[in-house]
């Protein structure tokens, strides 16, 4: 039936998607010298996808997503140090811990304006940062937890210096969780999230339990961010305070916005663009790369993401101005009943 086909179209795998993933998995082989950055991008990508679930689909802005990343990182580190060096187990424990934190923290993001949410999420992350600093008997304070050795992935693949195992490990986890996220956003559950993002009042008026949905998606996203943090620790062998830092949340937000919010591949694209760009420019000018990165962001916004990243539109006339799609006004009350 046509309606059914139309409804399913969005969720169907596009031909370019498997190609893209094949390319991603080929990258560590094609560019063996860049396996480390592939690993880093995979982790950042996972983190950005997790933020996209919250921001792009749930409509909740957050400047404190690093809270979950950081918790995942530290839990993995502690697990390895005190319990068992198995990376898979550690990853699951990281996700569980982050999910618990997400569940608890989700109650802080239900009310208020976007600005409120920005600040509350940020505050939660910074408090965790302070905690990690103060509980130095557990976390090693500013020195962090260093020199961790995780056992081989799948019992066979040692984490090597060139970072190939790390890259494949992170890419696999990314793919797995990405597919789960993809399922979620195209499901009826995902549709109710979009409904909440677009119009909370109306979502309530068709019987969607807005708060319960937000709690659920926040928890899921937190678990994914926790996985990213776990990967971070496992592939680098340490966890230190900066996993909770403000800039980690902020950079991820930038990546996501660069790639496009409310589109799962946006987070991945943003991570690739941002990281490669930073690596490339800072290789050229170690002191002033910030300037060029900043310039890129400014131009990106002024020219428009579409026009900048799709060269074939350069010679077309600007399409008639239409209202921007994306996250709603930052300062408006997310609404709903008090």
């Amino acid at each position: 039936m046509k309606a059914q086909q139309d409804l399913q179209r969005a969720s169907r795998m596009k031909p370019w998607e498997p190609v893209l993933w094949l390319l991603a998995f080929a990258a560590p082989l094609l560019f063996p010298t860049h396996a480390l950055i592939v690993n880093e991008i995979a982790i950042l990508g996972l983190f950005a996808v997790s933020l996209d679930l919250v921001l792009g689909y749930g409509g909740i802005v957050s400047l404190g997503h690093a809270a979950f990343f950081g918790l995942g990182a530290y839990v993995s580190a502690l697990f390895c140090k005190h319990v068992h060096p198995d990376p898979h187990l550690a990853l699951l424990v990281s996700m569980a811990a982050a999910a618990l934190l997400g569940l608890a923290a989700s109650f802080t993001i239900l009310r208020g304006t976007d600005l409120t949410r920005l600040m509350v999420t940020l505050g939660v992350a910074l408090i965790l940062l302070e905690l990690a600093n103060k509980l130095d008997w557990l976390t090693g304070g500013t020195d962090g937890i260093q020199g961790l050795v995780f056992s081989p992935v799948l019992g066979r693949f040692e984490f090597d210096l060139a970072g190939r195992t790390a890259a494949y490990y992170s890419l696999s986890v990314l793919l797995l969780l990405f597919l789960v996220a993809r399922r979620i956003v195209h499901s009826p559950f995902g549709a109710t999230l979009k409904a909440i993002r677009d119009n909370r009042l109306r979502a309530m008026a068709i019987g969607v339990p807005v708060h319960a949905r937000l709690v659920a998606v926040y928890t899921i996203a937190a678990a994914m961010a926790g996985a990213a943090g776990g990967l971070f620790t496992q592939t680098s062998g340490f966890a230190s305070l900066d996993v909770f830092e403000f800039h980690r949340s902020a950079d991820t937000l930038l990546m996501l916005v660069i790639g496009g919010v409310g589109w799962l591949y946006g987070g991945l694209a943003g991570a690739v663009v941002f990281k490669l760009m930073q690596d490339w420019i800072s290789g050229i000018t170690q002191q002033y790369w910030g300037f060029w990165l900043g310039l890129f962001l400014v131009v990106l916004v002024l020219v428009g993401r579409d026009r900048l990243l799709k060269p074939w539109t350069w010679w077309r006339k600007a399409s008639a101005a239409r209202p921007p799609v994306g996250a709603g006004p930052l300062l408006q009350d997310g609404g709903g009943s008090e």
Partner: protein
Amino acid sequence: MLTILFDGIAYGMLLFVLAVGLAVTMGLMNFINLAHGAFAMTGGYITVLLMQRLDVPFLVCLPLAFAGTALLGAVLERTLYRPLYRKPHLDQVLFSIGLVFMAVAAVDYYVGSTQQIMQLPQWLKGRTEIGSLGMGHYRLFIIAVCAALTVALQFVLARTRFGSRLRASVDDQRVAAGMGINVNLVFLSTFAFGSGLAGLGGALGAEVLGLDPSFPLKFMIYFLIVVAVGGTSSITGPLLAALLLGVADVAGKYYIPKMGAFIVYSLMIVILLWKPNGLFVRQGGKA
């Protein structure tokens, strides 16, 4: 402890001047200008460089910092910011962070990355003791300037039509213009004024907060806290929020130094959970 209260008020006032421009652009113009700190930094560097290199007196530098930053704000508004008013907030975030990155690197390139140190005139360096209350002259000066500024701002926004014309323009540019409001001029002057305030704040704050190229990033969180807690719809909101945070921070660090950074963040979270729209919201309808 009166001295602690005094220090807290001075610190809060300083935060207020630094953040009030942001409250204006963000609260009234509904534009997320994370580059606010970059304007503050500009004001700071204008002052420091004028004093160091040209020996301009401090008191002359302050208005110059205001005017210089306001001019910069006006130029940027005309050239870069204007098309962004209609873009989604996240694009505004991206854009203004990009500006911050550029400003940080540019200052680093031209001035260097070391902390700039300002030499205050002698009459601002002293300290007056009245009983148990010790007041640094510079902090006294900050309080005086900020108080004057608050009164002036309050007057402009409450007693003139400018405030409501600005809000009208933000609510609906097209219709506001159709009702005879020169929207472009209103935005330009507001933005320039907000930037100027940031510049003044930067000039005043360089002495207490330090000044180096990472200033805009380092203090962005503080500005945002003040604006979020104070609410974006008035001037008194951010003022009281800044004072509250200033006093709480200073007193907290004095009495329970172990709690360090926890205090400000916890206070912020508690307030925002209690009053999600900030302490002071424009409500209307309370006839």
